[in-house]
Every structure is written in C-alpha cells, then in structure tokens.
C-alpha cells in the first residue's frame, strides 16, 4: 500500500493560490473555511522570501487524533488522516494540537460548539460509502476512490505541490534538488512524518464504529 503524503517544494511555489481555489471548487468549501492555504515566509526580504502551500499533512501519529476527546479520527490504509463528522463535537482541540493549522470550523466564535470540524481529506472523502452524495456533502469529493489524486496538487501551476506516495515524492524532490543544486528540507515534512522515512511505516487506525 502506498503511504500518501503531501510535499510542497518552496523552490517552486509562487503563491498563486491555485491549490486553494482548486480545493474550493472541487469540494464546494464555503467562505471562511480554508482546507488549504498558502503562507509566505519572510515577505519582502530579498533572497529569503518563500511561499508554502499547506493543508492537513496526514501526519504519522497525528496529534489531532490523539487529543480528540471523542476519538473521531482514523487513518486509512493509504495513511490519510480522516475523521467522522457525525462523531465530531466541534471542541476545537484538534486545532490546538495540529502543527499546521489544518482543522477548520464553521463558527469562529461560539457558545457551545464551533460546528463540525472540516479539513483536507486528501480528496478521499470520509467514512461514508465512497462517492455517494452523502459523502460529498459532508467531506467533499472522493478522488482517490476514482483513481485520481488531490486536485490541489494536480492543478498546481508550477508542480510545487505534490501529492502521492511518500517514497515517490521523496525521490522526485531529491532528483529536483540534485538537478538544480538548491533546496533543503521540505517544510513540515519532519514535523508531520518524523525524521527519515519514519513515517513510512505506521499502523492504520480503523474508523470508529458508529452504533
């Protein structure tokens, strides 16, 4: 089985936001919810400015899953971290724990719940049956089930953002770095997957059973 990962090559990312709107287009993500975003570092500093597209990194040992008080997260056989919106209580803990700010909530301030958490699904839906309307309504499109990869990466204007099997991504990135002679670690890679290949072995976590 492949271990799905994202990798954003800051040597290529131009902050065009294609990944952001592709995501909105594909999943009809409402205003104010940002499953994916582009962050610019060292804005305006000559030679140091870089941009990175970031979303849920589908971490190995995902912090969100650990802190969830109701245990609504699971990790698929492909390594994709998903959650069950029917179980989510909107407490917001996952956002505090997430190193990448991935979880999004429909309500910014609340009295009670922040609403069901929403985040990048690696275009692979949720616990509902694949490619059903109910799955689309809750989690968006399930491209993985269609044999496609996440649209953000598929549409990335400069092929900065890549999605797919982690080992393959690493090879591509390494080759790029060798070819062009610059580029260091991919941002967030180690935070999400641990050092060198650690994240390639993991135990899938089964979806919670709803009674």
């Amino acid at each position, binding site marked *: 089985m*492949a271990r799905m990962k994202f990798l954003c090559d800051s*040597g290529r990312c*131009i*902050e*065009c*936001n*294609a*990944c*952001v*709107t*592709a995501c*909105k*287009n*594909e999943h*009809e993500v409402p*205003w*104010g919810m940002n499953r994916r975003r582009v962050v610019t570092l060292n*804005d*305006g*500093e*000559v030679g140091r*400015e870089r*941009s990175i597209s970031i979303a849920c990194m589908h971490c190995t040992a995902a912090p969100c899953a650990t802190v969830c008080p109701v245990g609504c997260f699971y990790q698929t056989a*492909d390594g994709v971290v998903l959650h069950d*919106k*029917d179980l989510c209580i909107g407490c917001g803990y996952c956002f505090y724990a997430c190193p990448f700010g991935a979880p999004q909530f*429909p309500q910014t301030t609340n009295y009670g719940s922040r*609403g*069901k958490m*929403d985040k990048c699904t690696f275009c692979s839906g949720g616990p509902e*049956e*694949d*490619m*059903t*309307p*109910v*799955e*689309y*309504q*809750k989690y968006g*499109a399930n491209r*993985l*089930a*269609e*044999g*496609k*990869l996440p649209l953000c990466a*598929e*549409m990335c*204007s*400069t*092929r900065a953002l890549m999605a*797919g099997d982690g080992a*393959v*991504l690493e090879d*591509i990135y390494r080759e*790029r770095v060798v*070819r*062009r002679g610059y580029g260091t670690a991919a941002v967030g890679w180690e935070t999400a997957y641990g050092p060198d290949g650690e994240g390639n072995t993991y135990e899938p976590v089964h979806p919670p059973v*709803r009674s």
Partner: protein
Amino acid sequence: MLIKRSSAKPVRKTLSGHLASTITGSGIDRRSFLKGTCTAAGGLAAMEMLPGTVRKAEAGPMQPNVPVELRKNICTHCSVGCTVIAEVQNGVWVGQEPGWESPISQGTHCAKGASVREVVHGERRLKYPLKLVDGTWQRLSWEQAIDEIGDKLMEIRESSGPDSVFWLGSAKFSNEGSYLYRKLAAFWGTNNVDHQARICHSTTVAGVANTWGYGAMTNSYNDIQNSKCLVIVGGNPAEAHPVSMQHMLRGKEINQAPFIVIDPRFTRTAAHATEYVRIRPGTDIPVVWGILWHIFENGWEDKEYIQQRVYGMDQIREEVRRWTPEEVERVSGVPGEQLRRIAQTMVENRPATVIWCMGVTQHSVGTANVRALCVLQLALGNIGVAGGGANIYRGHCNVQGATDFGLDVSTLPSYYGLEEGAWQHWSRVWEVDYDWMVSRFASKKLMETKGIPTTRWFDAVLSDPEQIEQPDRLRAFVCFGHGGNTVTRMPEMVKGLADLDLLVIADPHPTTFASIPERRNGTYLLPACTQFETSGSRTCSNRSMQWGEKIVEPIFESKDDYEIIYRLAAKLGFAEEMFKNIAVEDSHPLPEDILREMNRGCLSTGYTGQSPERLKMHMRYQADFDKVSMRATRGPCEGEYYGLPWPCWGHPELRHPGSPNLYDTSVHVMEGGGTFRARFGVEREGQNLLAEGSYTVGSEIEDGYPEFTMAVLRKLGWEQDLTPEERRVIELIGGENIDDVSWQTDLSMGIIRVALKHGCLPYGNAKARAVAWNLPDPVPIHREPIYSPRPDLISEFPAIPDRRDYRLPQLGQSLQAAVAQRNLQEQFPMVLTSGRLVEYEGGGEETRSNRWLAELQQNMFAEINTEDAQRLGISHGQWVWVHGPEANSRARVRALVTNRIGPGTVFMPFHFSGYWQGESHRQYYPEGTDPIVLGEPCNAVTTYGYDPVTFMQETKVTLCRVEPA
C-alpha cells in the same frame, strides 16, 4: 444504550446542488454520477510521479443513466491559454478536471483558472437586459433593448455622424467575436473602435512590429525551457501568468539558468530570482542601455548577427555610450557593478530570453522601452533562436487575437492599416463594394484616419469639438467586455461618462461604468455570456490558436457576443452585407464561418491555415504534442505545432505547421522558419535594409529579399508556378496593375504558395531595425515621466514635446515643466506604481464576484515600505488616504507595510473599484450584481501621461502622498 445519530443532516448544502435546482429545476449532486474513469496514470506521469500508487476505483457511477460529458475549453483569464476540462451533467457544469494533455498548461491552473466554474454559477452575473431610468434600474426585453439602443445610435449618427459613437471591444472576445466587432465598427462607419490591448501592450506591438515586423511574442512559454538565462523586466508572471512560471522554473532548474528580475517591486516572481534589480520606476531605458554599455564596452555583442540581420546598431552605440555605470546609477539608482554582472551573465548564458510586461509598456516612453529591450536582444543575437526571443506576456486570454483581428483604432484586421488599399482588400474579402464602404463613413479622410483610443475617449467627450479632428465630440459609448477602472485619470473619466448621451455595456457583469452615480439615464446593460457559454477560437500569447467548445448554454438571459453583434447590425440595417459569407441560425452567426472568412482575409499575419477543422483536431489530439517543442510527434497532427501559431501560411490544405519561434532561420519555412520581415523598404540612406547572407534553411534565395509581389515573382521567373485559377484571381484583383498585387492582397494565396515552394518567406527577408526612423524617438532615449520625482533631471531628459495624434492634442513637455515648476514632488513625495494580483484580473468585476477568489483578497491596499510607514506613523492594516496630484483625487485604502516595495515608492493593485474617495458605490449596482469585494480604484489617483506612438497611459509611474486616514 443506543442514541440515534443526530448529525446525519448535511454539514453544508452543496452549491452544485443548489445550482442544479435553480437552473434545471432538479437537484443534482456533482459526484453522484461521476464515472470511475481514471486519468490518474497520465496525471501521475505529468506530475513526475509514478502510477500505481493510487487505488483503482471500485465504486462505479451512482446513476449511470445520467452521463458525464467532458467538454474542453480555454481559461478565460490570462493569455497563457490553459485548458479547462469541464464535467457536465444535464447541462450543468458540475466539476473541473485538470487538462493533462494540454502542451501548454499540462493540467495546471492558477487561482483564477482553478475557480472558473464559479464564473458560470453566475450568482452575481447580469441576468437580463437593464436600463437606467432616473437612477433606478429597470428590466427590459432583449428586443426592446436593442430597439432603443439602435434608435438612439441612429439619431446620433444623423445629428453628429458615425464618429460620435465609440465602440470599445474586448480582449475577452473570441477571435471570431473580435473580428466581427471590428467589422461592425467598419460597417457602422468609424475607426473609433478599440480594446484592452491599448492599455496593456499596445506599445509592445508598436515597438516590436517596428523593429522586426510582427507585434507578438517571438517564442513560446514552453520554449523558455530551452533558455539559458531568463531576464524578466517589469513583469510579475508569478501573479499575472502563473502557469508560465512552470516553464520558466523548469528552464531555471534544467539549464541552471540565471533568473534575473528587474522591477521596482520585489514581486513574487522576484522571490525566485537569482538576481534582483530594484530600479526607480520609469528608468528602464537607462538600465537597459546600462547593460548594453557593458556589452559594447567589452565587445560581447554578436557581431556577425548584427552585420547580417540588424540595421542601425551604430546609432544605438552612440546613444549607449553616454550611459556609463555612474550615469545609470545617478538616474536609475541601480549600481553599475550589478549591471555589469547582469551583462556578463546574459553573455555567458546564451541564449537569454527577455520577458516583459506592463512595467515596461505602461509609460509615456512605453514604445521606446520596448524597443530598447528589442535592441538588447538583437545585440546579443538572441532573436530567432530557440530559448531566446522577446517573450511578451500578453494580458487577457485573447488580447493577442483581438489585436491581430484589428480591434484597434489604427488598423483593419491583420494589421492592414487604414489606407485605401487596406479598405479595398477587406472590401474584397467581405464582398462589399468599396464605394459603399466609403459611403458608410463621414468622409474618406476620416475612413483613413486613426480613431480615438480608449485611454482618451473621455477627452473626446469633454473637449471642445474644435479640438477634435472629427465632426462632433463623442456622444455614445458602446462597451463590450471592458472594465471601467482600467485607465488613468478616473475623475475625468467619470465626468466624461456623465456627459454621454448613451452608454451601452454588454458584459457578464455590470462593470464600474454602471456603478457611477453621476449617470442617471441612458445606460443600458446587456448580459453577455462568457466564452465558456459559446464556442470559438482564441489566440494565446505564443500565437497558438485554441478552439473552445461550448460548455453550457448561456446562463439566465445572457447571449454570446456573436448574437449581440448580429442583433445590433440587424437593427442598424447592415446585417445582410455584414453576414454575407456567414451562416446565421436564428440570429446566431456560426463562429466556424466567421473564422473561415478570417482565414480568407488575414494573409499578412498568416492567419490563413488555421481552419476551424484543424483547430478542433489539435484540441482533440492534444496528447500527441511534445510538451517542450509543442510539435505533434504522432497522430493526425504529426509534424504540426500546437495551435498552429501564426504565421501559418497558405490554405489549410497546405498543412503549414505554424511557426513556433518567429524569425528562426535555422528551420525551413515550411517547418515554421522565418526571417525578419521586409516591411520598411529595401534601402535607406544608401544602407541596405535587407538581410545579408542570412536566410532560412532551404531558401532558394541565399540572401535578403523584399516582400513578394507579382513583380518580384516575375523578376525571379517563378510566375509560371501559379495555377491558372490563382492567376485568374490575381488578375481580378490587380486589374491594370497586376504587378502591384502582393502576397498580402492575393486572395488566391498563390503568391504565398509559390514563395513557400521556393523556401522563401512571402514577407521577404530583411534586417531588424535598431533604428525605427518613423517613430518619434527613432533611437530609444530616456525621458523622465511627466510626474517625475526628479525634476532636476527633466532639463536633461525632457518629455516629448506637445503634439497631436489620434484626433486629439497630447501634452508632454509643457505639462512636465508645469509639474516641475509647481514643485509637486514636494507635496506628493512618493512615487506611485501599480500592478496585478494573482486572484484578480483586469478591472476585476468578474473575479471580485467569484467568491472563491474574492475570499483571498478582501481589501484594496497600498504597499508601503516599512521605513516610510514608520516615518509617516502608519501601521500595517491601517486605513490610509493616497492623494494624487490631479483633480484633488484621493483613495482610501488599507496600508500593507512591506519591504516588497522600495522606500519612497507606493504600490497599488489595479483591480478594485466600487468605492470612490471613501464612499461605497455598492448601492448603485443593479440589485444582486455587485461584486463581493469592492475597493478604491487605483486609477482614481493616477495621472496624465501618454506614449506618443500608441497613447498608452502612464500608470506605472506618477506621484502621490500617503496620509493616515
């Protein structure tokens, strides 16, 4: 302990479901019916990833009886021409997939392209025709709208003549729409017809065409992958043409190519530069000459190339001599050492490509800027070489095509100009009597006089009619697909707008023009659909034509441009003549027929081989084209270049492959090779203007030669190669003077065919002109902007003397002197420049109405350097007033404190409007059509200043003052 799941209700209603129910009346969910068809293998390969890492689809389509249709169109935003693949169900656009097969975009998009589906959701589009009655919008039927508009136009024509109507077309038209609109203006009887090219790259077209023959990007986006050095001047492709950056960054990576960015602003493109040069806005020529100074000084120029293919380089040398490193630094602020490094880098990494955009063109010296860059490339021998070239990134999706098809005040389609010969040629193509054509105009003289350009239309409304070289001032303005906040001096523009008798806006959105409260009557809004709702071809910046297929029927009551133009022509009484060769079905002209007529007439640019059939074939077999060379390696298009980039000579049956790189002599002409165009005679002041010892591979004439006419054919003894039918047509055209029939007017295309047969370019083989003697500045020289921050330099580098052109007076030196005399730079101590954001485009009405894009940029802002902000007591995000030096203009915007912009300079994006001097104009939009995001237009504070050749407005440098609000 079972508790029923309570949250089974959808978290959010999907928009497609919502849309489906509003449009088709039945709820359809996008993914319910998706086929399991899998493009992942191709996708993965294109993403430089291996297939087999993705699970195959197991679940099939949910409702197999509702099929998904894939339709292919082209993104309607910038000129890169990304393929849009639409998934359509029951006539509803339900999803978008990457167009992996496109050789240009290879599946990718930018923020705009990835959200085009929202355009056709159309929540904020114009839904039906409207007219403004005493300040309120009233709905009316199409018939009534066309009737009322037509009657008013005829009334104006009666009392003031046809030149009192200004026809503004659009770079958002298809080629067919552009051509038809130009034809409409011609049949109406005026040359007052223009479009966005005036305000973005008119100076490029003028500068480049006057240097080597054609006004277009010489190479292609893909070809940049062959570059050994990239120089980007006054351009920010990372925001304006993001998808082009994939080719540029690949070139940078594969070739280890230096990436040099010259710009006053440290842009997102510059973030990827290996060398960034910050210049003072408006000093491009000193910087270019400063680079060339080092090249000449060290003898790095390509001497053989110059001797064979360039005219007048010695005069350039004279001018360049004064631009020593010290002098350049004094004027532009760029250290001499840095320019030496750049010169050396360009020399050591050949070929270098030079890429430029509006930072170069939108100046009162725009044409000269362009020409200086051309000369730089000529000196290095980089033109006509794969990996080299002058790569001008055009702005809108079809601005190249619209320019080519003559949406311009100074020419008929295909750059034939306005002379009698041009009108006769087109009268023959249109099969109308030339004399009838003349009778449509106020006079033969006005028929051959350049019209009023879009940068100055309001001056032609407000001026004393005595000052305008036409019978009366402008009284009506018919505007198709054009923003209202795109030209400088908006306070004047608003006055002009208020004074119009009639304003007609045909657009998917109401535009800024409709939201000006000064107008209370006589405005009509016609809902035009987008190119996704019709079919037709568009020309990308690299001259490739792509055929877009209709994705969905026009939404609401909107109609496509063809039909609106047809209805207007019918109302105005010349539809029969105008559509003689074009099939019209139920008021809808067939775009294929329009293209066929264009193929017949556009000989001079080689727009003849691109028949609708060939274009559709290319779209269908996109996968067969190589991703770098753009040449098909297999399939029915084998050997052809993608989109048949013009010139694509002769009849379609000739199967010319198109010309991927212009002026490339290393390739046979039938393989797309070319020479510099012999457009300016054969000799000047005793100097040979034809090429010397340079010719395309396989040419039977191994030297320079003039353009082909019957006389030349005869002289060469190639006359007998003409078929009897070709000869008959030539005789018909030439009459008495058959010798005068040239390749440009020979409708049989026989002369072209014969020239090609002998390996020659129909347009001749000449030298490029480093000196363009017909321009106001034959050798580009530095001139300070009108509103110069350096009045101490204006005596040395004065603006152009006051003059007249385009039926209007143009101020130059006198205004510059007055500005300096009033010491305006003390009251307005900052330099203001403007530019683009990736999320928005042009006037921004369409993109600011797209919620997926609008969310990303919710506020109009001005970028201010940290030092300046500190000095002025301005903090990040705070409201500030930006004051302009003309008409007490001011704009209230948010401060974006950043070092992207240099000290002393302010940057504002130009996409915003809907606020005016701090006041919202939201209530003036027709209900439900106001864009989501409104903001102050940056052009509210920009000022006077026009390029003498094209009347391009000077948006890129003026003065301003920033104060906390």
